[in-house]
């Protein structure tokens, strides 16, 4: 079992570029920030390195950070431009019992993030959900399609903070 500091030290020595990996405290939790293009390399390393052995991805979360420029419309709704979307990875080693939270951010205008679906197969559906509801595009995912919303939903990604309901979907009234 390794502490957060030890894990961060190992990662930093392996990928020793300052701007790619850093730590960050969100409330009571420590998070390792990773530049999006590196995420697949880091994931593969975390899983295959015997002294780390992160064999399980507990959870993958997509988040709209709501940190871009806000323009309010007449009806009270707003649009966002710029800013970032984030992905949190909760990892765990079932053999060595340590846990880790990774975070990566991608720009809202081009939300492309490498997929880890081939490292942890369990992330397949989590990534599809993050794509479906937040709109993050996971590069290299074997089947990136909608999962909870209808396959023909063409009105955007509902968990975006500036999402607006359509009036009609296939002739059915949406707001109730």
């Amino acid at each position, binding site marked *: 079992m390794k502490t957060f500091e030890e894990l961060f030290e190992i990662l930093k020595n392996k990928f020793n570029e300052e701007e790619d990996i850093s730590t960050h405290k*969100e409330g009571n*939790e420590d998070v390792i920030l990773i530049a999006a293009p590196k995420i697949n390399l880091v994931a593969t390393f975390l899983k295959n390195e015997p002294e780390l052995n992160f064999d399980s991805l507990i959870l993958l979360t997509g988040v709209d950070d709501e940190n871009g420029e806000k323009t309010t419309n007449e009806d009270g709704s707003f649009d966002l431009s710029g800013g970032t979307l984030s992905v949190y990875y909760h990892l765990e080693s079932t053999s060595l019992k340590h846990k880790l*939270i990774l975070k990566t951010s991608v720009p809202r205008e081009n939300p492309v993030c490498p997929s880890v679906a081939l490292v942890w197969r*369990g992330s397949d559906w989590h990534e599809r959900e993050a794509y479906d509801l937040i709109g993050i595009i996971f590069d290299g995912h074997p089947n990136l399609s909608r999962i909870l919303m209808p396959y023909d939903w063409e009105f955007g990604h509902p968990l975006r903070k500036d999402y607006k309901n359509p009036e009609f979907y296939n002739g059915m009234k949406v707001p109730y």
Partner: protein
Amino acid sequence: MTNIIESKLKTDEMVLNMGPQHPSTHGVLRVELKLDGEKIVKADSHLGYLHRCFEKHCEAMTYPQIIPYVDRMDYLAAMSNELGYVLAVEKLLKIEIPERVEYIRVIMAEFQRIASHLVALGTFGLDTGAFTPFLYTFRDREKILTLFELTCGARLLYNYIWVGGVSHDLHPDFIRLAKEFIEYFRPKVVELNELLTYNKIFIERTANIGVLPPELAINYGVSGPSLRGSGVKWDIRREDPYSIYDMFEFDIPVGEGLAGTTGDCWDRYYVRILEMEQSLRILEQALDQIPEGDVSAAVPKRVKPIDGISYARVENPKGELGYFIISKGGLQPFRVKVRPPSFVNLSVFSEIAKGHMVADVVAILGSLDIVLGEIDR
């Protein structure tokens, strides 16, 4: 057709849709099966028929308002859902919980585990053609629901466990009735074993079917009885103890391949039977040790956590249920993400269904014990 003698039977692969309205998919799940005769070549799950934007709703509600909504995710284990959610919020708030509340929560969660497993076992029997055990398990589950009704007035969706406490103290008769139930229920497990577990037909239907190897299970993030059925000793109550689970003695049963291969449908089924007995053990200890006290002492008037993230997880009857909450210091959460155990467990289904017969799909789905309410959210 030009020549009737030379024409052959069509042997193309066939696509068969199982569900969304199918009694064995345990809800509105559609499984798209690609078949080569009776054999499954490919099985794709299509979800979302019950999607109701739970996570989006959460962003518009205050923290306590969300509790009734989490009930409706895994509606067969509403108490456990509430427990996971309030733990995540309490982690952000950093409040001390009275000891009596912790005991009540554990008692409710363990009763809920037995109730949920009874549904799982009964319907699993139903799926594989055994009708009677279903009636027996539901008879006993009703008694647990009556205990819940005595506690909070509701039989299915409770809104009972609140941030910092519980909504009502236990009924004065609760402990006596609960102990009576435990005494009543122990022999019923033996009865169920005789009726279903060791039944030859049932074993034929479930042993060596849908074998889930432990490495694959961990790689997919499978948890709960489905993971333990593969022989992995992994239980959040032991690995990452929450509430007061570290105070009780209990074993973690794992699948050993008694009827066939380790990790088959029968193993997943049998782990649930053994787990009910362990839950009874925890209940006995908790009911004996429960202290007196005020259950609403720590309930905050206004739930307004600090900036930050928190992930809390509990061992739900179905597996690891986690809540990931991002707070930006307001009265409403910035983002709530749920890790539904059924969602993750179902994702491994297409992997283990390959090569089996159509009738085995029913057995495999039943052994994974999914609830679509939490898969679709």
